[in-house]
């Protein structure tokens, strides 16, 4: 971010199963929005995880950083940095990513954090709960 680049405002940071970007119109479809996942065991890898961010009030060059941390101990699961040019100040900027195989080491809360040039802008929290499967009924005697 240059000296003159303003701090962008985060309007939305959403987690979902997948974000589809239409090749022609560039419209985004968020499939399976969630803030809670259930799993029978950990560690587990998430088959699909999409992240959508919408920002306004920015312009110029930025390096956006996404961090995912476990809120159990705030250990970092992954970090991604990507440069972006915000060409039209009046227009919003959308940031979309799809992940495959994100590791979930323990049950609990996880957080995506968004930074623009190391300035914290916002977060999205989701929970990974233990799924208790119902016990099968006892087999009939005889």
């Amino acid at each position, binding site marked *: 971010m240059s000296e003159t680049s*303003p*701090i*962008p*405002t*985060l309007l939305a940071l959403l987690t979902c199963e997948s*974000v589809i*970007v239409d*090749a*022609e*119109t*560039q419209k985004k479809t968020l499939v399976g929005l969630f803030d809670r996942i259930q799993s029978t065991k950990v560690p587990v890898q998430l088959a699909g995880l999409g992240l959508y961010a919408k920002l306004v*009030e920015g312009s110029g060059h930025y*390096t*956006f950083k996404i961090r995912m941390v476990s*809120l159990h*101990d*705030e*250990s*970092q*699961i*992954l*970090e*991604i*940095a*990507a*440069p*972006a040019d*915000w*060409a*039209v100040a*009046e*227009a*919003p*900027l*959308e*940031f*979309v*990513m*799809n*992940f*495959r*195989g994100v*590791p979930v080491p323990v049950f609990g809360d996880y*957080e995506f*954090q968004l930074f*623009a040039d*190391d*300035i*914290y*802008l*916002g*977060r999205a929290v989701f929970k990974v709960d233990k799924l208790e499967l119902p016990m099968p009924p006892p087999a009939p005697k005889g």
Partner: protein
Amino acid sequence: MSTAPFIAQPKLDTIQSPDAALGFRIGRIKVRAPLEVPGLQITHTQPVPRPARFLLGTLSDQGFRVIKPIPVEVEFREDTIITSWEAIEEFGTGASVFSSAQDLGRTIAELYRALQVDQQNLGPEMQRVWAVLQEHVVTRR
């Protein structure tokens, strides 16, 4: 594994009222090649320590916009995390660094509103705090 991030701004002229009868023609659609972002770095890392300080760019209050990053110190006390802005001696608490930062942001917003209402009657110390706030934060109209 992850796909490259898709970063885009919608065209300003995407939606227009047509001034002629609607029609269509069949044409070839250009499909973009997979987007490659120069400089993209994806890092799967081992646990890293919680930050001792960071720059805050939001008050988590839609009435305010941060115009200059707020330097925040982080302290860990048993199960509570305390974030503070030393220049105005305000702090927030939470179970994680950024839940604490959210609390700090709301505290700063409350302080801004309180000083704004009473700005004609502020003592020297509160005038200094008010000046620091105005340097970093503006209200939205």
